[in-house]
């Protein structure tokens, strides 16, 4: 066996279980369960109606099979759609959060105390189906920014939520989005008023803890005219032999001259070396550049999950609006990823940039799937796409499916693609200069991903690099 070959994977660092009593809805999906969720959340009637409409639609839909991933049938009746740590009453301050939960998030490196190191970041921490804490609410409120768990936002700002919920990803958009619309439990809501530059990074951390549950969060961010917000989400889950479903929906709306930067560091449990267990990450994320000169930028670092199925996209409706997608996706061991983006150009002089870096190691299968669509009215649209794949070892795979649909002849499209194999010679070169093999791989891979990492907020760029090194640890013998 030569040097480059999968060996042992470093045990998943975030695989612990928090021993906390939780309230669990009975397994299975029905109108009664949806009514129960809605009731638990104290929702208004319109919200329940919307959920039921989505559910009835979902019943008629079929699970999509076109992705380049393989998995057994999902039993939707075996999943618990609501799980929440038990607590006696509504929290008044962060001090009242169950210490076990605080400890859990501390252990994950997510501070939900308003401490110095992350003084520039407001965090909403979601544990199974509920948000357990949101920091810096006051600081944000002073700037007029609303940052709340979405269940609270539905109660406290029903008009705002009702106006925008489903406006980008309708309840019947696709199978998993419909499922989410029916059963979503928590997630974050952010509203940046006109002309406000959000004073903090907003961040949500999602943790799945309970067994045999799914997590169905929903995030909605609205940036009014001339506002700016940068948002980051992170996630992890315990190591279990079963597959758990995570079907989220994220909607972003940017009005005239507004800008939203949305970053994801996805580290769901990827399953073991043999591919047992792990999260099915089936997610719908879409942003709408509704206003002129608006800009939405997606950055994702996908290192976890057994299977990833997500295509964060932008609808470039406003003239001169800009959509960006920067992605690093890693598949090691038996992980599978089918991910990419959709850029739909509607407005004039709209621009989009796609930079995708896929890294495959072990038996991992990594697929880039992207659609760039230039509609008739999108005079002067431009797209630049770059898809690079890196292979580590000879049992993994990289696949690229770039779709281009141009209906306006003034469009300018550029597409670059490359596939490289991380070479024994590269690793040897760095080792000859004194670096350990793991450090050599880490350096090569981080260099490969540099264009994406530099899009991450400073606080998280280093974390992303470390995460990448850990995910690939042991992939080189």
């Amino acid at each position: 066996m030569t040097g480059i070959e999968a060996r042992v994977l470093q045990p998943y660092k975030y695989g612990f279980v928090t021993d906390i009593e939780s309230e669990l809805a009975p397994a299975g999906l029905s109108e009664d369960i949806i009514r129960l969720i809605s009731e638990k959340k104290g929702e208004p009637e319109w919200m329940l109606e919307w959920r039921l409409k989505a559910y009835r639609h979902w019943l008629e839909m079929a699970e999509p099979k076109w992705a380049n991933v393989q998995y057994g049938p999902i039993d939707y009746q075996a999943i618990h759609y609501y799980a929440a740590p038990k607590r006696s009453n509504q929290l008044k301050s962060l001090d009242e959060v169950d210490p076990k939960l605080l400890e859990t998030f501390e252990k994950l490196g997510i501070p939900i105390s308003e401490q110095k190191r992350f003084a520039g970041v407001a965090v909403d921490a979601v544990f199974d189906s509920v948000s357990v804490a949101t920091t810096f609410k006051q600081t944000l409120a002073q700037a007029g920014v609303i940052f709340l768990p979405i269940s609270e936002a539905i109660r406290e700002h029903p008009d705002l939520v009702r106006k925008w919920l489903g406006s980008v990803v309708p309840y019947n958009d696709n199978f998993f989005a419909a499922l989410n619309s029916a059963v979503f439990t928590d997630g974050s809501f952010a509203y940046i008023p006109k002309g406000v530059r959000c004073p903090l990074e907003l961040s949500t951390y999602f943790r799945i803890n309970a067994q045999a549950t799914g997590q169905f969060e929903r995030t909605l961010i609205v940036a009014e005219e001339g506002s700016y917000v940068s948002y980051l989400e992170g996630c992890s889950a315990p190591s279990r032999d079963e597959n758990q479903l995570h079907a989220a929906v994220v909607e972003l709306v940017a009005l005239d001259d507004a800008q939203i930067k949305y970053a994801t560091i996805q580290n769901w449990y990827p399953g073991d070396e043999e591919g047992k267990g792990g999260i099915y990450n089936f997610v719908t994320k879409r942003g709408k550049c509704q206003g002129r000169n608006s800009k939405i930028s997606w950055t994702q670092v996908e290192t976890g999950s057994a299977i990833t199925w997500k295509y964060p996209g932008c609808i470039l409706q406003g003239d001169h609006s800009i959509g960006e997608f920067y992605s690093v996706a890693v598949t090691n061991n038996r992980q599978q990823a089918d991910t990419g983006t959709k850029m739909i150009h509607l407005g004039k002089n709209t621009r989009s940039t796609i930079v995708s870096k896929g890294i495959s190691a072990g038996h991992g299968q990594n697929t880039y799937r992207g659609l760039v669509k230039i509609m008739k009215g999108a005079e002067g649209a431009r797209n630049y796409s770059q898809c690079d794949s890196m292979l580590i070892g000879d049992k993994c795979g990289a696949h690229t499916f770039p779709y281009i649909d141009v209906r306006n002849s003034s469009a300018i499209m550029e597409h670059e693609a490359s596939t490289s194999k991380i070479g024994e010679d590269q690793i040897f070169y760095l080792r000859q200069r004194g670096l350990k093999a793991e450090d050599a791989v880490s350096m090569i891979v981080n260099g490969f991903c540099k264009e994406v990492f530099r899009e991450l907020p400073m606080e998280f760029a280093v974390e992303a690099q470390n995460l990448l090194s850990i995910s690939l640890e042991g992939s080189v013998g």
Partner: protein
Amino acid sequence: MQPMLEIHDLHANADGREILRGVDLVVHVGEVHAIMGPNGSGKSTLAQVLAGHPGYTVTQGFVRYEGQDLLDMDPEERAQAGLFLAFQYPVAIRGVTNAYFLRAALNAIRKTRGEPELDPIDFLQVLEEKLQAIGWDDSVVNRPVNDGFSGGEKKRNEILQMAVLEPKLAVLDETDSGLDIDALKTVAEAVNRLRSPSKATVVVTHYQRLLNYIIPDFVHVLVDGRIARSGGKALALELEEKGYDWVKPEPAVA
């Protein structure tokens, strides 16, 4: 005096083919040795085996470096112990700047020596000094390692790395190949400036011309995986004149 490097009866294979067939070589501190030989004679293999390239298997013999069993060490351990290989074909590392890479390498080596790590600012100072010592500007420092470099720039970059990492034993593998005469002079001059009585250099080359600038103490001719002849610097000139056929082993007399 104990030699710095002692190679004894070294045999090595690549893909099941025997390339080195019993190499013997002794290098003392302060010496410069040139290894010459025709294409395919095993010169580059010898350099790669010394550095520990995983593509080669040593089947016989031993190599001692400063009293240690060199063949038992990982490539990075050899580097940390002061062995440096200037590659014939330096590879590119996209997205990683020379400065970042060099600092990581230097710190890895310093760590094994029990020296504190250098922060980026201290490191830049070291880099400046080294650039000055070899008389080069900092144009390559913030470019990605060897990415888009010309052949000459790549070779110069190897020498810059050597200057920063301060090896005890430097092995230069065909550092002259692909260089025009001016570039050759620049590189040779830098190598000469880095010479020291406490270090040793092994220069692997096909052509004599490099040895006009890096004057060796000893010249060895490698033919068919063995050192066929050794001598002083005059041997290189003789080879230049007579060609490699001159040293080929004479056919056995029946």
